[in-house]
């Protein structure tokens, strides 16, 4: 069992990387030992249903490309969708800070309405609490959802094997950098919009038995997700740096602040593991969907380095894609 070397929760524990995993395995699973929970998938598979939950505490609440409302719908819809299930019903729980502007709340509800229509889900139950000023950073939202599995053999990382190819539906790092820039703490201005979007319509168009596994790389980015996938497995993953879709602006910010685009959050991306023979046709289907215009085949599953995720650089050398540690920090020299 992993050790927790501290007696207080730190921000790093919420980063989505190794420290988050430590808390989950070391504390939550100590007391909650349900076998389905132990799978630690994006959603719980219960016979032919998938059940998922997510909480949203993003700051700032409104950012280029979206807001906490759109995020709340997309996050849970995508968690269900990547399990190969059609998202059907969502619940929303609001924790609102005293003094929050009603006009802001309305804007958020409009985003929620739009996103749920895009995803084809119904919001069927909810709850609202108000807390004193200073206790909720504006507004926090929890969304939970149920979906129906479509395939008799749902996507699972145990189905991945050497030879499979890795696809992504577009540019990485947009959400993470959009939030950073929107925080205005770093004196940076850039025209970057979050990619936050419900992906069910795209995923619905590609779902088939040759899609072995899917995941949405949110906090911790591709780096976190790939490491979760290879852990304890007898295969490894090799990504090709030259095939990674990264926009100029995201690359620029990463250069300047010393970030790795592989570690930045995405909220409108899905990484897909496909049987080699069918990869091209899945790619074509993705590209013909508005949410997949910049889709690429970015890597392959290999038996060369089991349990590791590796990047082949543009120079032909290799380096390990490490699990993100905690919160991303601008570096010094």
């Amino acid at each position, binding site marked *: 069992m992993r*050790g927790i*070397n*501290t007696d*207080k*929760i*730190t*921000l*790093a524990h919420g980063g989505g990387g*190794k*420290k988050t995993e*430590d808390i989950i395995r070391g504390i939550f699973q100590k007391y909650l030992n349900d076998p389905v929970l132990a799978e630690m998938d994006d959603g719980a598979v219960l016979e032919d249903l998938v059940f998922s939950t997510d909480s949203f505490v993003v700051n700032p609440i409104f950012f280029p490309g979206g807001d906490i409302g759109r995020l709340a719908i997309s996050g849970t819809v995508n968690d269900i969708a990547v399990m190969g299930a059609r998202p059907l019903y969502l619940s929303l729980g609001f924790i609102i800070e005293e003094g929050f502007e009603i006009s802001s709340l309305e804007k958020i509800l409009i985003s929620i309405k739009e996103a749920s229509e895009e995803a084809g889900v119904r919001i069927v139950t909810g709850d609202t609490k108000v807390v004193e000023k200073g206790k909720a950073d504006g507004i926090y939202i929890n969304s939970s959802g149920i979906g129906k599995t479509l395939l008799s053999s749902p996507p699972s990382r145990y189905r991945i094997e050497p030879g499979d190819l890795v696809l992504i539906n577009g540019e990485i790092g947009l959400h993470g950098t959009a939030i950073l820039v929107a925080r205005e*703490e*770093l*004196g940076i201005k850039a025209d970057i919009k979050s990619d936050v979007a419900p992906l069910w319509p795209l995923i619905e168009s590609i779902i088939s038995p040759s899609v072995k596994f899917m995941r949405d790389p949110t906090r911790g980015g591709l780096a976190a997700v790939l490491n979760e996938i290879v852990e304890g497995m007898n295969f490894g993953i090799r990504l090709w740096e030259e095939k990674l879709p990264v926009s100029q602006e995201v690359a620029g910010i990463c250069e300047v*602040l*010393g970030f790795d685009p592989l570690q930045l959050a995405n909220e409108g991306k899905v990484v897909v593991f496909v049987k080699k023979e069918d990869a091209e046709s899945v790619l074509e289907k993705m590209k013909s969907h508005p949410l997949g215009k910049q889709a690429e085949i970015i890597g392959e599953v290999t038996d060369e380095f089991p349990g590791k995720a590796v990047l082949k*650089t*543009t*120079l*032909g*050398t*290799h*380096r*390990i894609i*490490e699990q993100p*540690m*905690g919160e991303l*920090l*601008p*570096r*010094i*020299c």
Partner: protein
Amino acid sequence: MELVREFRDSSRVNIIKEKLEGFAFKNEVKIMEVCGTHTMQIHRFGIHQMLPENVKLISGPGCPVCVTENSYIDHAIELARAGFTITTFGDMIRVPGSYSSLEKVRAEGGDVHVVYSPMDSLELAQRSGKEVIFLAIGFETTAPTIGATVQKAKELELENFSILAGNKLVPPALKVLVEDRNLGVNGFLLPGHVSVIIGMRPYEFITEYGVPGVISGFEPVDIISSIVLLLEMIEKGEARIINNYKRAVRDGGNPTAQRIIQEVFEPVDSEWRGLGWMEGSGLGLREEYSEFDAEKRFQVDVPPPREHPGCRCGDVLKGIINPPECPLFGKVCTPENPVGPCMVSSEGSCSAWYKYG
């Protein structure tokens, strides 16, 4: 700048790689780099994989966070606990001091902020009105930025801003390293941006030991061509300082930056993790700026420093051992539970080895 791409161009890299592969050294050749950004870039581009046989690239004390001694961190922690607002460059947050870290202190309620520029710290002081202390670490690239910030604070007559002085100088460290016969460094890859500030002259002395040095930029073409230039000199037994980053480094460095360092700071003796106390190797605030000296202004009790038994960061920083030779590496000391700074800092040797290996 399109030109940056030219220095990253893989076909150029391949041509220089071929040149690199042409070297055949019978005995081991040790090249040491002393710049955190070089450590990172070398790891990022997998340059170790391109080196010919018998050529070893070792990492020296190039990471400013790594060479900052425990007592400095302990001092910063006590200041945070005393209720001051502490501002720092990102990497410092996670570095373990003798008993705790700034990250832990923040979790306990300490007002600790990560800033990207010392000016952000000044602006925070202006906005918040609280007593703000900036942790001044870094080498000659960072020192003038802090100096300029202190000068601005003086100009604005700001009364709630101060720094905890901890900047260090590269040439004194190079002197200790080049004199170390056990270490046996055959050539130095000299830091890019430190050189932008100080120019070429401060490095000349190492040639008197028969050791060459090449000032290098950070792109793959820069680093590989610099290594080739070093190996050529080593092969011929030549010892010169070559400026291979001419597009950024002027022979005389940046005079404005040098003037600001001299106006605000003066050399003081300083303790480096791994290298110990070195005369004149640090920067302290001059008398005229003493009102910005947090150490003078605020008295806090700092517990006696202690090193973690078994931690060999010091030896790693001196280039004596490679990270995997430290008994704690990868077992007790990992990036998520670091014992020493070399594993924490994004520019630390152990951190680079852990990911790369």
